[in-house]
């Protein structure tokens, strides 16, 4: 089920009523309802893949118990069962065919030709990268004794499958989400109101920005060979906003929906395009994933505590793995690699930990000239890396970049669906300006004292949704494919 579907529009209020009005007195039943709702939400897309979620839940529940009771060596063995199972799921459903194709390419390079390779050609289960990482983090935390395993299977199943964040995150940690599921929840007006506002803001980002930019981006990336350099830069620039609005919009709706059910999820985006360096960008972009890799991969590898060479190796490992996590394509690996290359100089100059706290223009209305230049450079670098992320192949990305830097003179660009292009520049300018205004709190997009101003903003946001909605556009979320 998509958040931006009519089914969800019916599903959400019905779930809300059942959750708070019918089952609010019995925590176990409320949690069971969460599981049922989550399975319904997921099964609406393809019920067959529910078995994978159930299996992942069952295995990690069991492993959690075993690890807790086991001694050191056996503890490790059980942990490997969890790692093997979850990574195995990803390996089979997401990466198997990629490895086979890569092997065939390598063999072809060495002069051996494989004519009939054995491939699975299976459909990628939506959200598999998210829920496997979520269950894996549980086993890892239990194994580190950072968390006591739960005996309540229903609560654990609710933690794994909690529908607002099941298919595209934020990737939650058991230490933060599980206690909320195990405790009796009370409805809070403030929390509910915040949730409703976040949902509205998420819908605006998804429908008015991400979806409306999608046909332009698709057109430019497909027909890049017939467009001029400025148009190609515009394509990359628009994709940067499309993917940001799409994914952060999803996260906002997820966080907002969870709030309606009395549950707090972690923030996933903190205005990443206002970052002053690539290091800061990664503290603000897809936070739940980057912190996952930091806590469960980078730090266990030694992090930055060892010598520089090892740290640089670790930096490359997490960026490459993070890129690969996004999809079984070399483009994502290269994308991760470029980010590692952008990050390493910051580490070597000791500036990677600058801007750990606070935001741009922390104590002023406008950024300083220095901050403005820093943001512009970071944004441009990130935008260019998106070309690899969006391209179908490395060759496609390189050809796109080659044409972009060939500096063909500007030729007019017409929207593939006939809309005025100026509308999009106005929309993005307003969006960027507004993001700058609200930069200090990503969870309160309408935090203004004046009730009238807030109301006016709700109306404007809804009007923008109405103005930029187009039923011919594919409305699925980009991160579903990961």
């Amino acid at each position, binding site marked *: 089920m998509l958040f931006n*579907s*009519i*089914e969800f529009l*019916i599903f959400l209020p019905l779930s809300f009523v059942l959750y*708070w009005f019918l089952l609010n007195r019995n925590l176990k039943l409320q949690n069971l309802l969460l599981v049922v709702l989550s399975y319904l939400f997921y099964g609406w897309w393809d019920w067959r893949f529910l078995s994978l979620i159930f299996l992942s839940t069952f295995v990690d529940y069991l492993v959690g118990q075993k690890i807790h009771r086991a001694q050191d060596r056996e503890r490790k063995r059980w942990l490997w069962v969890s790692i093997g199972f979850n990574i195995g799921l990803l390996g089979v459903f997401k990466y198997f065919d990629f490895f086979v194709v890569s092997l065939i390419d390598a063999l072809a390079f060495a002069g051996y030709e494989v004519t009939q390779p054995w491939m699975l050609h299976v459909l990628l289960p939506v959200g598999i990268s998210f829920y496997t990482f979520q269950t894996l983090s549980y086993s890892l935390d239990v194994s580190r004794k950072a968390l006591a395993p739960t005996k309540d299977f229903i609560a654990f199943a609710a933690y794994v499958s909690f529908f607002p964040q099941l298919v595209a995150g934020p990737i939650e940690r058991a230490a933060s989400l599980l206690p909320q599921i195990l405790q009796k929840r009370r*409805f809070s*007006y403030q929390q*509910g*109101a915040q949730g*409703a506002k976040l949902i509205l803001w998420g819908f605006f980002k998804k429908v008015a920005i991400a979806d409306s930019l999608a046909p332009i981006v698709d057109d430019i990336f497909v027909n890049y060979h017939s467009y001029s350099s400025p148009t190609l830069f515009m394509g990359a620039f628009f994709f940067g906003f499309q993917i940001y609005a799409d994914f952060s919009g999803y996260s906002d709706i997820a966080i907002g929906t969870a709030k309606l059910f009395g549950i707090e999820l972690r923030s996933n985006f903190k205005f990443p395009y206002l970052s002053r360096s690539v290091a800061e960008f990664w503290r603000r972009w897809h936070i739940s994933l980057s912190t996952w890799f930091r806590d469960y991969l980078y730090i266990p590898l030694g992090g930055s505590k060892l010598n520089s060479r090892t740290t640089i190796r670790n930096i490359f490992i997490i960026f490459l793995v993070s890129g690969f996590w996004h999809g079984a394509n070399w483009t994502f690996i290269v994308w991760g690699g470029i980010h590692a290359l952008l990050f390493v100089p910051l580490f070597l100059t000791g500036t990677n930990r600058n801007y750990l706290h606070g935001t741009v223009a922390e104590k002023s209305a406008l950024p300083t000239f220095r901050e403005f230049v820093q943001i512009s450079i970071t944004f441009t670098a990130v935008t260019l890396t998106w070309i690899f992320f969006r391209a179908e192949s490395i060759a496609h990305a390189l050809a796109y970049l080659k044409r972009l830097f060939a500096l063909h003179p500007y030729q007019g660009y*017409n*929207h*593939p*669906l*006939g*809309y*005025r292009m100026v*509308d999009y520049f106005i929309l993005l300018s307003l969006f960027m300006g507004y993001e700058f205004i609200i930069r200090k709190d990503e969870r309160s997009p309408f935090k203004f004292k004046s009730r009238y101003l807030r*109301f006016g903003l*709700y*109306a404007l946001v*809804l*009007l923008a949704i*109405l*103005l*930029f*909605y*187009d*039923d*011919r556009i594919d409305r699925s979320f980009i991160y579903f494919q990961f």
Partner: protein
Amino acid sequence: MKKFVLKCSLYVALLLLVLELLVRVFHLYTEDPPRFIDDLGVEKRVPNSTGYAVTGNRNQNFSEFRINSFGFNSFREFHPSIDEKEIALIGDSFIEGFHQDYDRSTGKKMEVLLGESVAVYEYGYAGYDLANQLYLTKAYEADFEAVDYIIFYLDYPTDLERSEYVPNKDRITLLSSRMFKIRDQIKLLAYTSRIGLVDPIKRLALGIRDRNKQNPSIKVDSVKLRTRYQKNFEKLLSSYPIDKSKTAFLLNSKTTDKEFLAHCRRKNIQYIDFGKVFEHSQTAPTLIYDQHWNDHGRDLVAQAIVDHLKAQAPHLLNK
């Protein structure tokens, strides 16, 4: 909880009111002048109204219409007389032309090309097929006898789906129903309905899921269908005979069955082909978001008609 539900409901209601106001202020909605079936059984618009037709969102296409006293969108009133030179252009939404201002219509362009010595009457109505068009000429026989030349716009094969005229009372009843009237009064609903935002609700209500949606495709190369269309054409012409010396069919030869065109030639039925000029046009002749003719397309169509008239009805061009 009570406060949350009450406040949410209040905000939703207020926001809907504000959005209704904004949709009205920016005229995002389209106006569809009411339709009716007159005493002679002809489907028309209710006479004497003006308004704006809007296509897509953000006023992607915004044009003024003017329904004349006869019930068609035109820059002029229709007063056919034997003393004046007049051409009747009959067709569906392409001729009705809600996609451009009424004073930039194909008929107006023809008049300019003809030196304004000839009046062009545009009998365009969205949804007209050939049965509608021919029936109109039969119902208002006296008027069309006075007209010097009649051009029917024929969109093959969709305009040949039926072989006899029956007024579409169901459509008129549906459009005049309370539900549709309410929809037209609530401009926000009219707008969201127009841009497809309420389509999922409609589909859900009808129990039709997206994945079951299939586009019916007409195979024009199918012998059976081709024969059927030709038979329908013949039957319509026998029910509502035309004066071949002063009648032509405006069509696109690129989308019309070659056999049908050969049939017209064999029967000495004149046709005006705008397909070739469309094909060779350097600029797109249709709107990007809609397949109706844009201003350039209308120029080409008007020119094609005038070229035809110069060859086939030169008397019309002499002052």
